């Protein structure tokens, strides 16, 4: 592969991301444009009671960011387990043929360990609601 073709290959690689980047810019501009247009033509008639939080029609009690039992954080922790898994599985899945039996067994062990993690969480009862 000559230096020129290698350079072109890299720039092709980057160009598709650049397109995504430009598209993101256009999308942001579109949302900003819609919101900006709205702020130009909508009416503004301030009234103190309009800016009170909605709490079924009565005055709000306490602050909105009051302490509450958050039983959801455990799911976020478990999700990290599977997200890390994805980092390894996706690149490996594209090269399945190259690694053959060895790769399959390695990945089987890896998935097995992660499944054990899920089973442990299950056994500890954190997946049970209430």
């Amino acid at each position, binding site marked *: 592969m000559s230096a020129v073709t290698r350079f072109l290959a890299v*720039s092709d690689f980057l160009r598709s991301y650049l*397109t995504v980047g430009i598209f993101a810019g256009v999308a942001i501009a579109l949302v900003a444009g819609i919101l900006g247009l709205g702020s130009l033509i909508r009416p503004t008639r301030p009234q103190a009671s309009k800016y009170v939080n909605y709490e079924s029609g009565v005055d709000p009690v306490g602050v909105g960011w009051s302490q509450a039992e958050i039983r959801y954080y455990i*799911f976020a922790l478990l999700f990290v387990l599977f997200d890390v898994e994805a980092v390894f599985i*996706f690149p490996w899945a594209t090269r399945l043929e190259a690694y053959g039996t060895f790769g399959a067994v390695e990945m089987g062990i890896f998935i097995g360990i992660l499944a054990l993690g899920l089973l442990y969480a299950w056994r500890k009862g954190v997946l049970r609601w209430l």
Partner: protein
Amino acid sequence: MTAASLLAADPLLAGKVDLAVVLIVALKAVIVLAFLLVATMLMIWFERKVHADMTNRIGPNQAGPFGILQSVADGVKVFFKEDLLPDRADRFVFRLAPFLSVVPAFLTFAVVPIGGNFSDADGGVIELFGHRTLLQLADPPIGVLLVLAMSSIAVYGVMLAGWSSGSKYPLLGSVRASAQMVSYEAALGLSTVTVVLVAGTLTTSGIVAAQHTWNWNLWATGIVPFVVFLIAATAELNRPPFDLVEAEQELVGGFHTEYSGVRFAMYYLAEFMNTVTMSAIIVTLFLGGPNGPVLVGPEWLWGIVWFFAKLMLLLFTFAWFRATLPRFRYDQLMDLGWKALIPLALGWLLLMIAIRVGSDEGWNPILVMVVGVAALAAGYALLVLAGRTARRNRELAGAHL
């Protein structure tokens, strides 16, 4: 590095880039944006009509023929509504959150191939103004990961909207939403791995090219990943029957309770746009994308026709779900995600790995299939047994609710 070499390293300037290439990119971006906006408008109308029909109502029928302009009328109306920003809100995050919801919905669509003939070695490349191009905005080497990343970013839009409102219902709704979306994203990713495994590439165009000659991933991966993906996608989209995020009876409006006017419309837009995008992703990953028989006329037209036919089918399915299925309870939602979909997707992935590697190494395919299915069945039986024992123990302890 000199300024000239820096300039030469600019990806857009490298290679033969002339006005036509830039124009093609710009044209494709504008087409995709316009298409998505119009499709979203039509999707809202379509869903309302289908839902109305299924519940024996008429639905929108005033604005335009068959009420098809109803979404336009709603959109115009919303511009003239006052925008309220609660006193207690975190003003910066409150304004930022709608962007985080809408922009990922757009970006995902950038990697979807909406046309092209994938039956030859070209892999969907068509001629446009003398230049060869794919009928998709961008084809990054990790297109599938981009899709997953964007659906992760969408979680921020919902979560920050609820948190920044400084109000109780939105906070509860957004915490629910993040737990739900994060849970089902694991199942979504695991069922996508099966597709990558079969296609052997992470580019969306490559995945579509691997599905020509009716070798759709729907059956190439054995239906199960498709079902898991469809269920997980419905949950990712917070669509019925997984719309606990905005369960009106419990949470008023959910995370967008405090939003009004155009900002609220942005969330409404993002929700339906995500439905369109996710349907397009399902078509790409499982239903062969623009692949289909060419009947009469130009080849490139039929790719687009088939893509839209499949897209409509999925959009109808989502509307059908909404009209028929009752909403899940939160514990049922979590049980389905963690105790059914994820183990199923993991087990199926292992089975697919065994079958693929077995066919490479020349193992007896029937033996691999029998042993694999037997192992899956044994695992399932063990889980059911464990669950039953746990329930009996709980009932004995008197802790059952």
